[in-house]
């Protein structure tokens, strides 16, 4: 019976957004500014979903509506089948805002415990939940220090710890790797993978497109408040009209050979270059302890 319920639960999208529009009134005259314009997409349970877009594209507004912090002007937003304005649904969500400032005079452990209490974790489970969240984010060693002494990377990691301390089903991370070095960024990436392996749904907003590409199952790209595209990375990125061949060493692809291949076999080679690894991969391979 339990597994049937769980299966049903898994079929309910973690997030369903339908025709969402949000207008703000700005200035003394209350001029209307449309931040989100008729956006629809859904996030399936258990997937890592990337929400992308340039600054001012409406991502943060969309996230705030998902979290029930803003009311939409029109349209609907449901979290696990419930309206996002329903406060009970927030116990299933963990959230890390962009560049947050936490209570600097508390220690990391006190901070995570405080958020656990606010999330409704039963008092007898608070210690374990706190230690789990600290371990997941690699913050156990620094947990006795006051938050105001943390580096930017540690602040982000303690932020992730407070977001996951109540074992939420949906974790929303807004720029979790902003201002962090590639090693710290990779550690947060690892924590996100662990979340996925535990069956969590993760929504990731980031400008680090390499990381999004590496982590996400599906993405949605917003631009000027509208949804530009949504789908799996394959659907969005694959150029169906072109093919890529990796040719082994010792095969000189000279211009003459390319011309011959075109003439004799109709193979059109557009560009010849040598593959190289990304700077991030090089950094991680050579500098990670």
């Amino acid at each position, binding site marked *: 019976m339990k597994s049937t319920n769980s299966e049903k639960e898994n079929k309910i999208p973690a997030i369903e957004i339908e025709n969402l529009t949000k207008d703000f009134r700005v200035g003394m005259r209350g001029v209307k500014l449309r931040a989100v314009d008729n956006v629809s997409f859904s996030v399936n349970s258990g997937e890592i979903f990337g929400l992308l877009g340039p600054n001012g594209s409406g991502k943060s507004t969309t996230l705030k509506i998902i979290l029930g912090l803003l009311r939409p002007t029109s349209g609907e937003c449901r979290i696990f089948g419930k309206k996002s304005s329903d406060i009970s649904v927030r116990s299933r969500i963990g959230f890390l*805002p962009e560049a947050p*400032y936490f209570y600097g005079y*508390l220690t990391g452990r006190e901070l995570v415990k405080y958020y656990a209490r*606010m999330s409704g974790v039963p008092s007898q489970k608070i210690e374990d939940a706190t230690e789990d969240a600290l371990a997941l984010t690699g913050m156990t060693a620094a947990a006795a220090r006051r938050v105001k002494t943390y580096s930017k990377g540690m602040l982000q990691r303690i932020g992730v710890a407070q977001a996951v301390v*109540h074992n939420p089903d949906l974790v929303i991370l807004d720029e979790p790797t902003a201002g962090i070095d590639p090693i710290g960024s990779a550690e947060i990436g690892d924590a996100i993978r662990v979340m996925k392996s535990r069956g969590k749904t993760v929504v990731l907003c980031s400008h680090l497109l390499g990381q999004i590409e590496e982590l996400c199952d599906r993405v949605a790209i917003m631009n000027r408040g509208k949804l530009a595209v949504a789908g799996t990375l394959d659907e969005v990125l694959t150029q169906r009209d072109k093919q890529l061949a990796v040719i082994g060493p010792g095969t000189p692809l000279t211009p003459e050979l390319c011309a011959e291949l075109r003439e004799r076999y109709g193979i059109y080679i557009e560009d010849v270059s040598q593959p190289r690894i990304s700077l991030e991969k090089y950094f991680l391979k050579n500098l990670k302890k």
Partner: protein
Amino acid sequence: MSFLKKIFWIARNTFTEAARQKFFSFLVLLGGGLMCVSLSLTHFDFGDSELKFIADFGFGGIFLFGSVLSVVTSVQLFFTEIENRTALTMLAKPVRRGEFLFGKFLGVWLLLGVFVVLMCGVLAAVLAWRAGTVAEIAMARGLPMPVLNFDGIAVFAVFQWVRLGIVAAMTIAVASFAQTYLYAVVVSFVALLIGQLQYVLADFASEGKSQIWTKTLAEAATKFIPNLQLFNVGEALVLAPDGLSCGAIWSALAYGMIWIAALVFIGLWFFRSREI
């Protein structure tokens, strides 16, 4: 988790955060230090009014530093949290805006309570120490013995706590719609000043010579800003032989509590519709 528990933990966290800040310790040390310094002025020989001088010095210090602490801490712990997104992490949890705002207010008010108790404790110690000497001098000169009511200091502490509670609630109400830190601080201090000038404004409103619009403005200020002068009862409570009647004490405290409740609800009304 019941809403009372959430409010309790928000208040406790707010108190812990504020009490660990250097600003609180600085004001406590400054206020307590100034009260002790007032003792060194005794060589001017103020005679039987010396206790009144020390008491007035203490009353003024408690209100001045308490008001600064109240406004700055309320803005710091409420408005700044909205500005730097800490509030987002809280309100993304199953926490209602009312619970957040009320918890913040209670945390600040608790801090003000600790401040008032510490300050009144120092004042009582300073007065007690000096009252002995003044009593000896009065006895030697055949003058009337000085009056010093220590129970009155305890009642005075409650009065100041309520008064500073009004200031904190007023600041949170302003911060709930303010768009900048400076605006929240300045408007709160202006409201505090108007609250301290209520009897002057009431006189101004009733004067026949005043222009209509200035009368209306003064009348509005007396109606919509709480009368903080009602709590200037230190002398009557501590140094007067008869003190204050129970009726006067309870009605002033009830007045203060009603204003606190009203201001917290006004703050909540603005905060509920605020887009953060």
